[in-house]
């Protein structure tokens, strides 16, 4: 087990290092002059070439690729994400402030998704092929097909414009978070419903279940102790992908609802070629993915140790 954990951590470290290098290389080789973009973002006007050259030196853009990469990654390994190329202020506090808006939104979306999808999937899987089941699958497919930006606009139109129940723009009160969270949550619920439903149906086909019924084990106990763990494996697998959807969706939803957060943080940083900020966001996302996948791997090994043994 210790050896397996070591292997998983090593894999996580390799993924993080690869992500850091790849994003740095992509930004470094992006077309256009980054020094010019930073200058425009800082002074809001085109200034003399001398100032642009000064900024080039200041942002370390005149150095070679590897020198620049090392001078960026070195401090990060000690927890220092550097200063913004535009404002000169440290990146980390600004990033934390943005995450303070995005993380609760994503968690609320996830919670809504789980609360809606689990009962719906269990209900639908009770009688596969019935009109309830077909209805649930149809709603879930529709939900998965509707992009978040369109659903967000529909919700704004209905609840903010026509009914005037909820505020749509900004993030001043907790009520401002309801529509964005709902937009995210409905998308999550749609994909989770289909996966949980098919997970349950597949688990129900396990060849050993009739024997448990003949032994007198109640349907409730069979559902809880045998079907649920088997259904959990595919569900947990997609959970990692769901996280990607949540992050991407949160960024998009923040733009639609004019909310502050990682979305606007990232978009403004990309426009200004503010390398330290962009890379900090990407690294944070990669770290999150690595942690979640690590937890998923550990969950697998706990629920079915054969998975770990096959790897070894």
């Amino acid at each position, binding site marked *: 087990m210790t050896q397996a954990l070591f292997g998983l951590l090593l894999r996580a470290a390799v993924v993080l290092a690869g992500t850091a290098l790849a994003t740095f290389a992509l930004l470094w080789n992006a077309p256009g002059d980054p020094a010019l973009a930073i200058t425009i973002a800082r002074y809001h006007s085109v200034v003399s070439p001398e100032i642009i050259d000064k900024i080039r030196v200041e942002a370390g853009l005149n150095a070679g690729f590897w020198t620049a990469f090392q001078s960026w990654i070195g401090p990060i390994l000690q927890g220092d994400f550097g200063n913004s190329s535009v404002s000169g202020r440290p990146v980390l506090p600004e990033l934390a402030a943005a995450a303070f808006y995005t993380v609760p939104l994503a968690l609320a979306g996830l919670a809504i998704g789980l609360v809606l999808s689990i009962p719906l999937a269990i209900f639908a899987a009770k009688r596969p092929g019935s009109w309830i089941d077909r209805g649930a699958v149809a709603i879930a497919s529709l939900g998965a097909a509707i992009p978040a930006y369109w659903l967000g606009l529909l919700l704004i139109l209905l609840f903010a414009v026509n009914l005037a129940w909820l505020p749509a723009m900004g993030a001043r009160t907790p009520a401002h978070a309801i529509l964005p969270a709902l937009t995210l949550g409905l998308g999550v619920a749609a994909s989770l419903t289909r996966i949980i439903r098919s997970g349950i149906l597949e688990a129900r086909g396990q060849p050993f279940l009739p024997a*448990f019924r003949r032994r007198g084990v109640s349907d409730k106990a069979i559902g809880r102790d045998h079907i649920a763990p088997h259904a959990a494996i595919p569900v947990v697998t997609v959970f990692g992908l769901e996280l990607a959807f949540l992050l991407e969706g949160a960024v998009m939803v923040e733009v639609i609802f004019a909310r502050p957060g990682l979305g606007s943080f990232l978009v403004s940083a990309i426009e200004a070629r503010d390398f330290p900020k962009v890379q900090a966001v990407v690294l944070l996302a990669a770290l999150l993915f690595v942690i979640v996948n690590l937890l998923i791997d550990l969950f697998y090994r706990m629920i079915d140790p054969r998975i770990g043994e096959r790897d070894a």
Partner: protein
Amino acid sequence: MTLSVTGLSASRSGRTILHPTSLNIETGERIGLVGASGSGKSTLGNALVDDLRARGQSVAHVPQSPDEALDPLRSLNFHWAETERALGLAADPVRRQGIFKALRIDGGDLRKRPWGWSRGMQQRFVIAMALMGAPDLLVLDEPTSALDPVVAARTMDLLDEHLSGGRTAMLLITHDLGLAARRVDRLIVMDDGKIAEDAPTQTLLNAPQTPAARSLSAHRNWLSLPC
């Protein structure tokens, strides 16, 4: 107590796979249910178990392979405790140890999941679970076909020994007349979803009346494995 069922039948996608069948089983009786593949042996066994269970009789069933009886995600301890609960029995380590000793699996680690044990031990664990409630009838559906002949013979010997003199009747479903002949008092031959012949073992082997029984009897020599 005589267990009796009447009018058992089954059909699958519109085709009758078990014609209405009635059966009496005496206390402690050993019956072999034989017939070619697809003759309806397992269907009759399952219908018998389900019918008796529904009427509150104490019956236990051992499927062909441990894969059809054990959840690979759950420990053997969990299986045992779950079956105890299902039968309404209090947890009793002494009873468990007694059955395990009889089947020679008392050395196994119950914290493991089924695949942590050999298949022969898994199958004996399944038989042990079936014996837990001291049922009136034990239905064994090709219980040893997943095992190698030596382990199979040993398992059947241990089971025989455990059941001998008790009240538990045994219905042994098999395509192997050789296996059945040595272990049962009465043979039932199935053919095309019907009972073709039902007679004491020696009578049926020496003077089979129907084509189905004659064909099984004629082939029993090369069919018989060392079990």
